């Protein structure tokens, strides 16, 4: 079975996010970028399935300018077999991503597509679900456990109030939650080998997808600075404030 994993280049979770002076967007110039943590978990899961003999090939795909090749190389160093970059100037919005991925799925015919449930920059949590709809494949989102049994995938999902286990007929779509696994560190020899693994570049036109913009970014603002707290002199005063000022109880 082939597994397709989509990965996204995002601002490093350690980096400080700054808003551009004109509030038009987040300033990404010269900021450290990294593999989206949820995507890293998706790569790890795919590699584990390969190591367990369930999968025979792991293909990673990313969308964006040439710089996303860095993240593809990272995924290759972690153990993916080959990579596809879909070359676009901008990072497209979820529906466009899902459409592009749907075309890759059509071409590659993976038994399983694993995606991060969301990216830590835009936090949309939409692509996996849209891809499932576009390809007509069953979906198991927010996975904290994935088991492939014959032609089925058993996925434990983290839902409000507990865990829900679903059985999906393969081929299927899975999106990862944080607790699915703990990604490994890339090994030195594998970092070196990653340079030689195949990386194919395609354009949206090659895939027959026209990128359309449905969302307009109006303004980005930094969160308001936190106000200094106050001390209350009794529990009663605290309860009173929580009830009447904060209105949270």
């Amino acid at each position: 079975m082939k597994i397709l994993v989509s990965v996204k280049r995002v601002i490093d979770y350690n980096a400080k996010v700054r808003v551009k002076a004109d509030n038009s967007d987040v300033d990404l110039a010269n900021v450290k970028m990294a593999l989206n943590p949820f995507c890293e978990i998706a790569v790890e899961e795919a590699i584990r399935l390969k190591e367990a003999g369930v999968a025979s090939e792991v293909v990673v795909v990313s969308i964006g300018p040439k710089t996303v090749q860095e993240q593809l190389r990272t995924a290759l160093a972690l153990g993916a077999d080959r990579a596809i970059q879909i070359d676009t100037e901008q990072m497209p919005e979820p529906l466009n991503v899902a459409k592009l991925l749907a075309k890759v799925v059509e071409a590659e015919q993976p038994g399983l597509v694993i995606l991060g449930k969301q990216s830590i920059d835009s936090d949309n949590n939409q692509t996996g679900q849209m891809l499932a709809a576009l390809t007509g494949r069953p979906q198991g989102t927010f996975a904290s456990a994935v088991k492939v049994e014959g032609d089925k995938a058993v996925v434990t999902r983290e839902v409000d109030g507990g865990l829900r286990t679903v059985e999906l007929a393969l081929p299927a779509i899975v999106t990862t939650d944080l607790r699915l696994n703990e990604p490994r560190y890339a090994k030195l020899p594998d970092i070196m080998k990653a340079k030689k693994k195949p990386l194919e570049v395609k354009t949206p036109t090659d895939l027959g997808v026209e990128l359309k913009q449905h969302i307009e970014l109006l303004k980005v603002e930094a969160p308001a600075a936190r106000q200094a707290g106050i001390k209350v002199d009794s529990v009663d005063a605290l309860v009173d404030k929580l009830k009447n000022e904060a209105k949270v109880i």
Partner: protein
Amino acid sequence: MSEYQHPYKDVTFALRELVGFDQLCEQAGLDEVNGELAEAILEEAGKFGAEVLAPLNQIGDREGATLGEQGVQETAGFAEAYQAFVESGWPTLTFPGQFGGQALPNVLGTAVNEVWQSANLSYSLCPLLTQGATEAILHHASDELKAIWLPKMVSGEWTGTMNLTEPGAGSDLAAITTRAVPEGDHYLITGQKIFITWGDHQMTPNTVHLVLARLPDAPAGVKGISLFIVPKFLLDEQGEPSVRNDAHCVSLEHKLGIHASPTCVMSFGDNGGAVGYLVGEPHQGLAYMFTMMNHARQAVGLQGLGISERSYQQAVAYARERIQGTRRDGSKIAIIEFPDVRRMLMQMRASIEAMRGLALLASAEADRAKAAGDEAQARQHNERVELFTPIVKGWLTEMSQEITYLGVQVHGGMGFIEETGSAQHYRDARILTIYEGTTGIQALDLVGRKILRNQGVAINSLLDEIDDFTRQLASDPEMALLSERLSKALEYGRQATRWLLETGGQTDWAPGAVSVPFMMLMGYLCGAWVSCRMAQSASAQIAASEGDIEFLQAKVITARFFCEHLLPRTSGLLETILNGSESVIALPESQF
């Protein structure tokens, strides 16, 4: 306790702009290696250091290694970290492919080693000593011994140690008394060694000790010392560790710092003799040790950088969050806003960037020597390695004392409290000016072996190179201030060198009396030289509107701070060198 983050941008900038990494790899014929790969490797190393090794640093300080029935027990968590380190292939980085290494350039190994040393100095000593022992076998042992011992040492599955020092033989190794008696195909070793770093632990199934000892027919003094492999466990026919050898840690030292690094008293042959195998030829042990000395000494210099970087990061984090003082409008002030705190942070930063530049530049000289087209070129680069080594070891580690001192000082009273973690860096740094040759030994090596012995040829060639650069810098109006400072210090360097060659060197005592000031002067001069070179690159990039403007501007400002606050020390040092040697020894010994 702040978290460690690898200064990736600064390191890659120095590799690219100062070392010229891509061009170096090309020269060396390493088609597969370039800056891009180096960056991928450094990023992963930085991640491993920050996430796996750094969290164990403070635990290791509080709960250091202990000695029990089974030998030395390392700090909890270290074995798992070491296992992950080996599985990730980090020990293999610079070793030849033949024995499972990745054959990457020495300078990249240096950049990666900085990560381990910053993240956890005590831990980093184990792979460092293993590297040293592995190099010794690689360069001097027979093919047979190499085949037996190297693969698992290169991979890190077995660790290595260096057993030189004895109670009566420290800086003077001629006094070694450990004995080796031939018995069949091996030797029996008897004697005691002290200060053996990571001499025992439970992290790996075997440890390979390299031991200096005397054969029965050995001539007296340094010419009668041989080198032996003495494993903790003897190997069975499959090459797996089996029988326990007669080599044991009998005591652990209680130390000021690096508590997680077990410093062992090793006893060989308490029960009849430890089995050992001769490395290379008899009586060549010390010569073999010397071939590894440049690498080992530069590596300790790098530790000075590593611990300084960690101390700096922690000081910055504290200075940002520590609120002390109120403005007129009632808003609160973080101490990082106070000019004197800024001075301390700038001093730490400017020193560190210069130290890093010099460490990388010096270690790249070894790669250049290896890649040289002809013998004359190779000799030149090797000469530079020789010259830089005592400066890197001596100056970087001396600087680390001041930097970790400032790290504590920025914390104020909290710096004196162990809980904050800054004091650990101050204590851990203290060994660095001592082991692998004290500062005094480094300075003597510089003035004696590296300058007087060749009548100043090597140092003058370096000074000429700095001179050329200074002239070139002067033609750039943006760099006028830096160029002016640098040329002044260069003149001091020339005067000091002339004094040494013409006056000081004529006596037995004068060079030794002011050798440390001389070495420090050269350190500041070289530090300013590399800082200005990086500032010049940064300035050119700014002019071309390339790169991260804030980062590049910071490079220029930091170099300026170095030239204005640290480089002027060269003037005082020169005065001491020219006039101060006599008062050092004027007082009769009886007056002390």
